[in-house]
């Protein structure tokens, strides 16, 4: 606690000093005759549970963030850029003596590793600090440019869900997939140490303009998506403890590969403009960001304080992904809304060769992923997967509702298809209904049990999204809403927010985040229905 208070003070003082240094026009300083620029923000947020959230009416998160960005022009062609970030959650301090909070953070599976250790992100336990969130050298030559260092690489055209955005993993530990999905995932994407080289050949084959090639190499320090689940560090934003029979414990062993040249990842992107179609062709070889689970055996142990004696162990392992794809966009200028604006078409499609899935078996109930069904010994299967998005952005004037600005509508339809899919695959194991808690042991693999209710991977999976935004009062009032819908699981996610932009510095925001869906076995967006919330956020930018 003393350390935390001390660190809080450091942040406050540092922030104050930065504020004092800043001029009205941003932080440009001359250092040895070269420009050094610094800016950033301080942000405090409070989220209050709503709906059938067990934290309804209570502060379930209070994220504090200090982010500083700076750049230094070393030479005419070389510059250094960095983002430094400190993030914490004051909810731990606010609720430290609250019984409901203790219970949310100390479920049986979570108790052994308290989320409290992750309060402040610079703690080593959290597997890395973001004090240096990004840092890289930019080198600009005539036909080449290089970016070397810890960075984000963003491909694709899609909002809300990530298709071609496959290079960097994502941190889902705050507000799941709605933390910054409306803003492009810049805050939740996890930077990687990458060498990026871009080549600009200055030629126009077949009328293709602006041709550029992008090569990326990760030398072997890979990361995975971060989502607290299954004996993870737990906390408010962990997935619920799976429903398990009262004598059974799930043991999850993370086998994330360490840093090794054997884990090198590669990517290539070609971008160009042909007849006003901006296109990319993409290829990537690297490690999956989400694990598959390898059964590691069933064992008996002396009862722990949780009273469970049966341990079902699984290892989180990470397969290799081989993905090719393309994106397209164009304004469809021959279509006009009442003679004014045209829609912009966005298309994105990926083909993944032999993606690894957790295998259920020929039918639901086989539970091949347990490794305990001799009739279904294979616990994982590989299928090709095609993911496609088609979307339209359209600025439409509705003068009755806004005399000065258009409404921006962004609609997307997603189709995920497994052309050679056979049998049943699941997104996650331990998919038992709540009633199973009254049972001592899990259903026998191979039997059709009433407790089995997996979140299945469908041969054809469809989603859609709709984002709507407009602006009032000279863009000082900024409302935005984003809807996401899962057609197969009938699950729904929504984020609505209202930001005020008066002046150059203060940016207050109020918002509402909700998910609905099957939350018994945690399918799709239902996994986080328990965390729906309203929030208030205040940011000071400099």
């Amino acid at each position, binding site marked *: 606690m003393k350390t935390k208070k001390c660190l809080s003070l450091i942040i406050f003082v540092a922030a104050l000093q930065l504020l004092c240094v800043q001029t*009205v026009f*941003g932080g440009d300083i001359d250092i040895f005759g070269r420009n050094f620029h610094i800016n950033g923000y301080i942000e405090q947020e409070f989220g209050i549970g709503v709906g059938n959230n067990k934290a309804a009416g209570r502060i379930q998160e209070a994220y504090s963030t200090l982010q500083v960005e700076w750049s230094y022009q070393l030479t005419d062609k070389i510059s250094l850029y960095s983002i430094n970030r400190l993030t914490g959650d004051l909810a731990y301090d606010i609720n430290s003596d609250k019984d409901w909070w203790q219970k949310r953070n100390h479920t049986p599976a979570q108790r052994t590793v308290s989320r409290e250790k992750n309060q402040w992100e610079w703690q080593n336990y959290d597997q890395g600090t973001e004090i240096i969130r990004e840092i890289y050298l930019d080198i600009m030559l005539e036909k080449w440019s290089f970016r070397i260092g810890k960075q984000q690489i963003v491909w694709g055209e899609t909002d809300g869900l990530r298709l071609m955005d496959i290079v960097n993993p994502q941190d889902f530990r705050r507000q799941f997939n709605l933390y910054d999905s409306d803003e*492009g995932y*810049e805050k939740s994407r996890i930077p990687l140490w990458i060498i990026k080289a871009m080549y600009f050949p200055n030629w126009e084959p077949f009328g293709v303009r602006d041709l550029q090639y992008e090569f990326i190499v990760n030398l072997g320090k890979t990361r995975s998506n971060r989502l607290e689940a299954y004996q993870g560090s737990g906390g408010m934003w962990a997935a619920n403890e799976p429903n398990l029979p009262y004598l059974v414990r799930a043991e999850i062993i993370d086998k994330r590969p360490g840093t090794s040249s054997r884990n090198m990842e590669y990517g290539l992107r070609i971008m160009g403009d042909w007849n006003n179609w*901006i296109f990319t062709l993409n290829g990537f070889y690297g490690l999956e960001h989400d694990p598959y689970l390898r059964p590691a055996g069933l064992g008996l142990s002396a009862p722990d304080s949780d009273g469970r004696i049966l341990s079902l162990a699984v290892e989180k392992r990470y397969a290799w992904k081989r993905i090719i794809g393309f994106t397209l966009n164009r304004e469809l200028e021959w279509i006009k809304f009442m003679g004014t604006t045209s829609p912009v078409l966005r298309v994105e499609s990926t083909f993944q060769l032999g993606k690894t899935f957790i295998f259920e078996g020929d039918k639901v109930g086989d539970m091949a992923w347990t490794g305990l069904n001799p009739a279904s010994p294979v616990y994982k299967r590989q299928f090709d997967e095609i993911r496609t998005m088609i979307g339209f952005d359209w600025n439409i004037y509705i003068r009755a509702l806004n005399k000065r600005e258009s409404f921006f509508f962004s609609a997307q339809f997603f189709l995920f298809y497994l052309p050679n899919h056979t049998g049943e695959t699941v997104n996650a194991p331990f998919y038992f209904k709540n009633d199973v808690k009254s049972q001592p042991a899990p259903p026998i693999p191979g039997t059709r049990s009433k407790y089995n209710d997996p979140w299945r991977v469908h041969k054809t999976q469809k989603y859609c999204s709709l984002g709507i935004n407009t602006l009032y009062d*000279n863009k000082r009032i900024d409302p935005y809403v984003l809807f996401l819908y899962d057609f197969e699981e009938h699950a729904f996610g929504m984020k609505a927010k209202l930001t005020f932009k008066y002046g*150059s510095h203060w940016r207050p925001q109020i918002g509402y985040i909700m998910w609905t869906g099957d939350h018994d076995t945690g399918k799709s967006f239902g996994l986080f229905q328990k965390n729906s919330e309203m929030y208030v956020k205040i940011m000071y930018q400099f």
Partner: protein
Amino acid sequence: MLIRLIIAALALVLCCAPQVAADEKVPAWAQQWIDWAQSTNNPEFIEWSKKISTPKAIQLGNEWEEFLGYNAVDIVAKDKTAPNIKPGLVITPENVDQYESELRELLPYGFDYNVDRLKQTGYNTPLEMVIVPTHHAYQDRGYLEATKKYAKNCKLDDKGNLQGWVAGIPFPHPTSGVEMAHNYDRLTIMADNLNSSPCEFGLHGSNGKRERVEKIELHWRNYQGRIKVDPFPNIPGKEDVLEKGSIVALYPYDLRGFAAVRTRFKADDVEDSFVTYIPSMRRIRRLAGSNTQDPLVGSDLTWEDWKGWWSKMSQHDTTYEVIDEVVMLCPSFNPLPVQFKDKYGGWNHRYQWERRPVWVLKFTYNDPNYIYKHRIWALDKEGFHPRMLIYNDAKGRFWKYFNIHWRFNPDEGETDYWGGTMVDVINKHMSILVHTVVLNMTNITENLFNLRYLSSKAH
């Protein structure tokens, strides 16, 4: 020896002759400014009078006068309106009552909103007018040469669309409003490239005080109709492109890093390509080039106000009417930036004004979905560009006005901007643009206007 002396004397005379001839041949349009400046004893005016009367400036000014057949000074000299509004006078909110009626004579057709500013009625954007003599102001030599060469090929089709244009001013002696509109449409940035860093948007709320500032770096380049910087008149390989612009936002934090490249194509039926880099998304995203009616950043300007208007002239059913041809009091070519100060209970503008011969041009939009019903321009007869602009909303109500703060380089004939003031009188909001412009840079390359530019801004 004697022969040598004679030769030396002749050489001396010849060397001096052009200068002596130039000194003796300062035209009246320059001399009247010199005389007035001297009479004020004001070093700023005296310095400026020297700049407009260099040999190079005089030569270019004479050539333009000869080509057009007139100059502004002579036209204004014949106008006897409002005799008390004369160079040397400074009109402020404190003394405006004495000059109000004459000012309104010199600001007809709705442009007397500037008098309302002096009288501080309505949305308070106070003003101080420093009256200076009229300039003979002209465009770049490149426009003169290009106009002489190519204007004869320009004509209008039966829909009023311009045909045959290559470079220069298509109709140097316009006979209709649509011809005047095409002249400004082709002038665009009045240079081959324009670079402003920073271009600052000061945004002022209902109390007149600045509540935000937004800054961008702006580059603009003509691909057709080039008049000065190689290659001209066109850039090879880009025959379908009319012009391109790029911006990157510099301030504040939540705008910083936003970059955009806008490509305007020559063909009437092809929309702009408008491709952006959005920092929070860390990626390139295409926006609709057809969306020209939304405001730029948080300002009171839309794309449709940028460089006059944005949509191609063929896209909206528009009537162009020359209401009148008058001498009007207009913002002058201030040698220094416009001064702003918290004064008279608002954000006071102090700048120079002069009488100018203008066409009063009225645009009427017959498209019910267009943002405006009318534009009314005071269009300069020498420069073919607007000095002041009025915008009526779709219902025909007076909505906005725009005073452009012009800047002039007499030696080169380059006309560009200190900035401008756009005022929304209905919503009581004001945007003051302050440019830091460099024209016709020779090291501007395609790399400022392509996807590479956006990628290079990607952080």
